[in-house]
């Protein structure tokens, strides 16, 4: 069955360092891979989308890589700040457009001042 794996353990990182979060998937051929941020009790907020034919995408301090051979995406936050503390969700969408987006459980990031 299709599976999206994220490290469900919390990631603690010192302020100013680069946080790297991992998303692995199996039995899936996504057209898009997305990353969302979720704060406690709030709805997910879209951060970045990367297509299957793209290797890397950047937005300000965020960088996403997508390796369809390894079936893995890495999400980096450079120069991390305490305000970056949240749960980060990996999400996959199948090809064909407007298909359901399937989420991983998320990784909780804590940036320590």
């Amino acid at each position, binding site marked *: 069955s299709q599976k999206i794996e994220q490290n469900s353990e919390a990631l603690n990182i010192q302020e100013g360092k680069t946080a790297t979060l991992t998303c692995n998937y199996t039995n899936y051929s996504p*057209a*898009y891979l*997305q990353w*969302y941020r*979720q704060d406690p*009790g*709030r*709805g*997910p*907020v*879209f951060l970045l*989308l990367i297509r299957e034919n793209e290797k890397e995408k950047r937005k300000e301090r965020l960088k996403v890589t997508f390796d369809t051979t390894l079936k893995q995406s890495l999400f980096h936050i450079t120069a991390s700040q305490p305000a970056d503390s949240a749960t980060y*969700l990996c*999400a996959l*969408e199948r090809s064909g*457009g*407007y*298909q*359901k*987006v*399937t*989420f*991983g*459980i*998320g990784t909780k990031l804590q940036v320590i001042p």
Partner: protein
Amino acid sequence: EPEVTQTPSHQVTQMGQEVILRCVPISNHLYFYWYRQILGQKVEFLVSFYNNEISEKSEIFDDQFSVERPDGSNFTLKIRSTKLEDSAMYFCASQPGTSTGELFFGEGSRLTVL
């Protein structure tokens, strides 16, 4: 900035009661979704809706659930006879009519079934 709004923010109900959760998607969006998140678990897909009909639904979305877009602005999720295990945060989301893939989520409705 346009946003998806959901009401109520929190609803407490007795088991077996009907519940209606309401959503106002972003006005020019064409695709609408309901997701739920049980406390401590992942965000799970329930149903997608396009052109006034369900386009896809998950195995969670059984006969107890229904969706409606009654007036061109609201998008509702009805649970006919709530069960304890329906307690969760329910999120509405919408997408514009371009294949960006990005979902715009509301802040959620927390449902507590006693």
